[in-house]
């Protein structure tokens, strides 16, 4: 039964693989492997250091601050999953029948379950019921606020205002007056030290429109 499934998988992958041709060129497999290893370094360097922090290394670093490395670890995982899939789609019989590959998948699944459990339990205890939704709500509230002040035509600008590359700052960059001026939800985001939303530096002197793109005073 299981063997039939394995044979079916291998035969079908070999017959329909979209990447096998490219992977069998002189540089295809070596380059994919290099990328796979770099993804591995990124994955372990970011998620592994976060795990070490949870285990008590560098206790003075706030867990929330450390958590901002996680997206880079996820990037590493995505790099690994996609390059790994390319190996599988090129030489399926090297993997499908291989007990080491089965164990590898088992351990990845355990890691996934572990992460899921963490986000549903300890993480909630540290950061509240749904920090992601709360952060999104804080951003949305800020965005609504900006749109109201600037007029409906500036809704898109208000959204662009919140893009990570733009005016999303950490709490250290905010003047105390700015922090006081922020809404309660925003303050939650600030305290957690997540990417926090920022009011225009010129509180009380509202920018006039989308053409205002110069550097904000006090920005680094």
């Amino acid at each position, binding site marked *: 039964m299981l063997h039939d499934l394995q044979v079916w998988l291998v035969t079908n992958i070999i017959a329909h693989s979209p990447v096998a041709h490219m992977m069998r060129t002189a540089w295809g497999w070596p380059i994919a492997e*290099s990328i796979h290893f770099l993804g*591995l370094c990124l994955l372990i360097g970011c998620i592994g*250091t976060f795990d070490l922090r949870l285990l008590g290394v*560098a206790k003075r670093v706030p867990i929330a*601050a450390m958590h901002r*490395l996680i997206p880079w670890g996820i990037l590493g995982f995505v790099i690994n999953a996609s390059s790994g899939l390319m190996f599988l789609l090129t030489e399926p019989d090297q993997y499908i029948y291989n007990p080491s590959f089965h164990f590898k998948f088992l351990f990845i699944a355990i890691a996934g379950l572990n992460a899921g459990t963490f986000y549903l339990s300890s993480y909630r205890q540290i950061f509240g019921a749904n920090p992601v939704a709360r952060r999104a709500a804080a951003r949305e509230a800020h965005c609504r606020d900006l749109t109201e002040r600037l007029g409906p035509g500036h809704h898109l600008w208000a959204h662009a205002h919140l893009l990570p590359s733009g005016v999303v700052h950490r709490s250290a960059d905010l003047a105390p007056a700015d922090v006081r001026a922020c809404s309660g939800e925003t303050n939650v985001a600030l305290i957690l030290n997540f990417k926090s939303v920022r009011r225009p530096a010129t509180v009380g002197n509202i920018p006039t429109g989308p053409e205002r793109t110069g550097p904000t005073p006090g920005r680094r």
Partner: protein
Amino acid sequence: MGFAVGICLALDLRILGVAPGVRIAEMRRFVPIVWIAFWINAISGVLLLIGYPTKALTNPVFYLKLLLIGVGLWLFSRIGRRVFDETAGEQRAASPIVQRLAILSLACWVGAVTAGRLLAYTYHRLTALG
């Protein structure tokens, strides 16, 4: 490799602006882990080298890999000397010199890992016998 190179990458990313809430001086706590991981790699690497000395020693890519690892570690200690400072660390990390060192360090590790992987494909001789 994951921890040795990975933590170096994480430090470089922090210098280049990722996770700004992490005080950079505190990242020195991870330095011993980099060195432990590095020595595990170095020792197992020497064992692999003893297994097939000709394969590696006749391949120029092997020397490129060693060079990149050497420069990477040198950059790591240079960056560390500048930024693992309680008071001046943050300011120094933002300086153009350290920013450039961090980019160079990223490039070195990407190069070292790539060169290491290519070793499996670029050798001319597996053993001295042919």
